[in-house]
């Protein structure tokens, strides 16, 4: 029972991410059950739902960190199959930010940002360094460039993780609960960066429970439960008048 707002497809830019009938199982547990989602270039989507609803699994399928069992996922014109070449083509254009940052602890902040551009994009050390400096400035952490991840706070580490992903100059950014592992006072500094990124026109798919962020930047809120998309609406509609009982329950729990 998917409820969608009717849109005039002809006036919209084509989808940069198309998820069609995707099913994902972990053993006997169905994590994703016939998911259909399309994301247009420049669109910002917030995925929310109770834990175990499949939202993280869904975005992890978009860059093939998780493999889907059936259905189709097409990212920027490339269908994700088992072919490693295609998978890496997609991954080059899709940046990801994890809940637990996953910075490389043995590399300095700037080296964290330089590694993939050098090894994957073929940039020289100097080019990669310049680019890393630029994005570290953008996330306002350039003065810590020579420190190591373990020397930074959680909020700073997550901003570095965003810069590291941006250094690959991706077309799409995926955020998997980027503020869930942070102390409350550090959430804002990360969200501020994400809002700026949204203003710059980045295509973003964010799994988050930060409803303020969703209201501010999301074009669409996608609500999931039990591996299915239950409701899809613009944030104003979703928060003011959720159509399904499950969405109402969920919002009742997270908004105090």
């Amino acid at each position, binding site marked *: 029972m998917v409820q969608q707002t009717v849109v005039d497809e002809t006036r919209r830019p084509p989808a940069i991410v198309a998820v069609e009938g995707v099913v994902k199982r972990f053993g006997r547990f169905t994590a994703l059950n016939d998911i259909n989602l399309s994301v247009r270039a420049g669109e910002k989507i917030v995925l929310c739902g109770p834990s175990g609803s499949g939202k993280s699994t869904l975005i992890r399928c978009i*860059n*093939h*960190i998780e493999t889907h069992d059936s259905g189709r996922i097409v990212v920027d014109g490339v269908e994700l199959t088992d072919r490693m070449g295609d998978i*890496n083509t997609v*991954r*080059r254009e*899709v*940046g*990801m930010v*994890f809940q*637990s*940052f*996953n*910075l*490389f*602890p*043995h590399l300095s902040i700037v080296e964290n940002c330089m*590694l*993939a551009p050098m*090894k*994957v994009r073929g940039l020289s050390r100097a080019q990669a360094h310049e680019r890393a400096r630029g994005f570290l400035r953008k996330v306002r952490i350039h003065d810590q460039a020579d*420190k*190591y*991840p*373990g*020397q*930074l706070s959680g909020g700073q580490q997550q901003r570095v993780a965003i810069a*590291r*992903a941006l250094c*690959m100059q991706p077309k799409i950014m995926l955020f998997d609960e980027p503020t869930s592992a942070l102390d409350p006072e550090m959430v804002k500094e990360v969200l501020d960066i994400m809002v700026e990124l949204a203003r710059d026109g980045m295509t973003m798919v964010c799994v988050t429970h930060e409803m303020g962020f969703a209201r501010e930047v999301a074009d669409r809120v996608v609500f999931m439960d039990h591996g299915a998309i239950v409701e899809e609406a613009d944030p104003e509609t979703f928060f003011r008048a959720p159509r399904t009982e499950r969405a109402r329950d969920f919002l009742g729990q997270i908004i105090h």
Partner: protein
Amino acid sequence: MNSLDFSIVLQAWPYLWSGLLFSLALTAVAFVVGMVLGTCFALLQHFEVPVIAKIVRGYIALVRSIPLILVLFWFFFLVPIVLGHLSGSGRPVPIGATWTAFITFGLFEAAYYSEIIRVGLRAVNRGQFEACQALALSTFETYRSVIMPQVLRVASPIILSQTIILFQDTSLVYVLSLTDLLGAASKLAQLNGRLVEMYLVIVVVYLAISSAASQGVALLRKRYAIAGARR
């Protein structure tokens, strides 16, 4: 033999020195061969390469259950016969004591280093692999630039222990009539009846080398320490 007389050690020094050099050379070669092969073995298991991973597992289980001294022995006597059969002539192809020692130690240590690296690989957080995937790093770059540097840092104290044990185990080459540091000392000690002096000096040499190695690794660890890491 009531008083200690260390002059004998001075006279014997050139012989002890050549024994020490052999021990060090054998340790160095076995370390390099063992680490390279051992890392390959660990990665083959880590990637669960069909069939080969099982063979490697079996090899490691076998090697670890046999004393090194027996392996040396069998290698020295059996491999020439096997080589003879393979070459078709049927006559044993002798490989010599020195080659036997270097090859056997390398293959033997590979099994132990492999286990150390394998455990180290498991200690690396899954998120590190996912971050590499998300950045489209190739498998080779993932391991070369991200995973192995962390594994080697975690495993370095155990690798050091294993290498010190290896250095001490070089004394087993006496079964091949090769002369290492301990072998040289014991031959001389029995020749001139100065066992106590000789063995005292040898203890000091072993102690000096082992603690120098520990100091060296401690320095390396400090130099390559991960700043801010909670270890």
